[in-house]
């Protein structure tokens, strides 16, 4: 891995710029959380998009995916692709399921006992 791409290794300066970028993204995501965005969908999309951007920076530069063998990139992506499968297909059930308890909790969900004693 190292020997093949030794010539264009990132320098300390690259690392520092990446760190600055990560901190800026951190500030952005915290700021976005305090915007009054109605509904949870957009808040989620913004938060996760920024998180992915940060993850990409970490993986490409800190973890050297950008400077490594092509196989490494495939291996790195595999976990996320499979997690995508898990989330997408599970959500295909949850989004379309007319669940009796999906109403607001303040509206007395059907089988929720607030005095449930544990075990």
């Amino acid at each position, binding site marked *: *891995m*190292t*020997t093949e791409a030794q010539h264009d*290794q*990132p*320098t*300390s300066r690259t*690392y*520092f710029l*990446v*760190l600055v970028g*990560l*901190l800026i993204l*951190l500030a952005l*995501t*915290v700021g*976005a*959380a*305090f915007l009054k*965005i*109605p509904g*949870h969908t957009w*808040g*989620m999309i913004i*938060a*996760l998009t*920024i*998180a992915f951007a940060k*993850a990409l920076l*970490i*993986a490409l*530069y*800190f*973890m*050297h995916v950008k400077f*490594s*063998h092509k*196989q*490494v990139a495939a*291996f*790195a992506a595999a*976990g*996320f692709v*499979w*997690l995508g499968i*898990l*989330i997408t297909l*599970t*959500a295909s059930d*949850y*989004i379309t399921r007319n*669940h009796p*308890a999906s109403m*607001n*909790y*303040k509206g007395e969900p059907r089988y*929720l006992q*607030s005095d*449930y004693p*544990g075990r």
Partner: protein
Amino acid sequence: MSQLTALEHDSYPAEQFEDTQQQSLAATLGMWTFLATEVLFFGVLFTGFYMYRMRWPDAFADGAKDLKWYLGGINTAVLLGSSYFVALAVEAARSGDRRRIVRNLLIAIALGVMFIGIKFTEYGIEYHDHLVPSLNFSSVSPEGQPRATQEQIFMTYYFVMTGFHALHMIVGLCVLAVIAFFARRGKFSAAYHNPVEIAGLYWHFVDLVWVFVFPTLYLLRHP
């Protein structure tokens, strides 16, 4: 895994390998494969969290508001910084600069310990706020606001996610400490520094997980 990989070097290259390049690629791919399993390991928690978030949006938004977002934010910055110093240590290892490896690793370890410290302070605050499910979860917050029963699920996910992350941090800190120790003893050189890189990968991954944990738990404050 990372420890095992790091230790597979009685002779270099090890007897099953033909050359050092083959060993280096094998170690890197092995670590990445392990990290792919880790993605799915944490992925289960994210899947469950987001499914429940869709079912109980109000309770989960209230849960996020009950956490201390600034502590989470500071911790994110601390961990990103720690990752930066590990990246510098790996770079130093490539040029065979032993003193720079040790110095950068020690800074990274210090930041990691700081992360753990802040995390446990946070746990203390949550205990104090009666937010620990099945231990002292209270249906009324200290400020007198009612809490939904389902907020217990949120808090369960919070403790499981951050707990497993902290566990990985502790393992990672031990690995970095071992690497720093060997680096000080002069075990690594420009020709042989694979364990530093592998340990670095693991540490960056722990950082990467936190990058997702932080917004998921702390920042989804709107129902």
